[in-house]
């Protein structure tokens, strides 16, 4: 499977060559697209998943430009390479920033983090087929509560709890308490430490 393309917005041939080589080494799977300016990048039809940007090419005020970029491409991940002085708040918009005085090791680590972080955000979509009430019940079941305790905690009849649980099982395709617990952790309904 081919990884999504990375759009690299740089001007200097030197930067282009450097980034091409680093990425070839660290992320051999990704294909690269080079753009000479941010405008060129914004005008493209596609929304690149990864954008690597030379800070020099970021029109001032930086935050405004980044906001615009984000609004055009909310899913995009932005890495800024600092070649000119950056306004501090850009960190809010950028997923990673390579600073001028970073060591080679730090740079490699930052690039790696940048791609890892993106894959973390690409987790499967949250399963929204169960209602808020059902989520609450999954949560309590996962925490080891009995039907009676759940009925007491949520002020509903035990019969209603049973009905909810049947619906949950048929919607999620999970029958056992242990299975619901795994589901609840995977979907952030509980954290492991709560158990």
């Amino acid at each position: 499977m081919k990884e999504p393309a990375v759009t690299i917005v740089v001007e200097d041939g030197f930067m282009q060559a450097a980034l091409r080589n680093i990425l070839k080494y660290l992320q051999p799977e990704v294909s690269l697209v080079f753009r000479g300016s941010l405008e060129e990048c914004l005008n493209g039809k596609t929304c690149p998943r990864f954008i690597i940007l030379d800070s020099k090419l970021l029109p001032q005020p930086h935050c405004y430009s980044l906001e615009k970029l984000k609004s055009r491409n909310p899913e995009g991940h932005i890495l800024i390479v600092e070649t000119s002085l950056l306004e501090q708040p850009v960190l809010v918009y950028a997923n990673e920033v390579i600073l001028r005085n970073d060591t080679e090791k730090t740079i490699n680590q930052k690039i790696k983090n940048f791609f890892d972080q993106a894959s973390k955000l690409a987790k499967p979509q949250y399963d929204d087929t169960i209602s808020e009430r059902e989520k609450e019940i999954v949560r309590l079941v996962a925490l080891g509560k009995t039907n009676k305790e759940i009925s007491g905690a949520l002020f509903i009849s035990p019969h209603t709890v049973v009905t909810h649980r049947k619906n949950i099982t048929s919607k999620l395709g999970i029958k056992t308490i242990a299975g619901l617990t795994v589901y609840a952790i995977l979907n952030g309904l509980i954290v492991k430490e709560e158990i």
Partner: protein
Amino acid sequence: MIIKPATQLADAIHENIFLLPVLNRFDIQLGFGNKTVEQLCAEKGVNMQFFLEIVNSFLDKDYFPQSELQSFPIRLIIDYISRSHTFYLKYKLPQIEGLIVKLLENAEPSNKKAYSLIRGFFEEYARELIVHIEKEEDFVHPYILAIDDAYNKNLVTPEIIMRVKQESINKYADGHDNVEDKLFDLKNLIIRYLPPAADYTLSNAILYDLFRLERDLNDHARIEEKVLVPKVRLLEKRILAKKA
């Protein structure tokens, strides 16, 4: 396809590859050329009627002429069941666990937590299956073999009668449910909720194996419930009648 004495075993394998582990339980290994079921059974000293019933019931879960299966010695059925237990414990579970461990090792850092949850869930499932199997091997099977032996040798002692009263097969007849549900959940968790693996061939392999295991276990449970248990019930009844 119904397997008959004259069927070439190779054809049966082409029909359904999942038969392979079933054949292994009869000590039949690959490389059997054009030999028929009849020839192979004779060669391996396998009771052919029993073999045909097991194989056909595996191919078609509705094929189950109980009356015919009832005519086999209990020992044969126990032996077959024990061999499938060995297959699950020695090969299948470690194999799947190995794949899950590999999945975890190769996982992207952000997926490690989710995969280790699956590993934990699988281990819990495996433990339950092992406990279930050990109970059968350590208590149920020895009990069945003991009363069968006593009945066949006409040695129904008061101890045997006591055992029949105390250990009756009905006590064991039901006990697969939670283990089956866990396997069902495990499949669904992987199919529906686990973040996709970087190496999708690994998660595919795990799922293939889980489905195969489930298929085999279902067949196994069917033989226990539809063949072994009724047969033992009948035996218990005869033993208690003998006493009267």
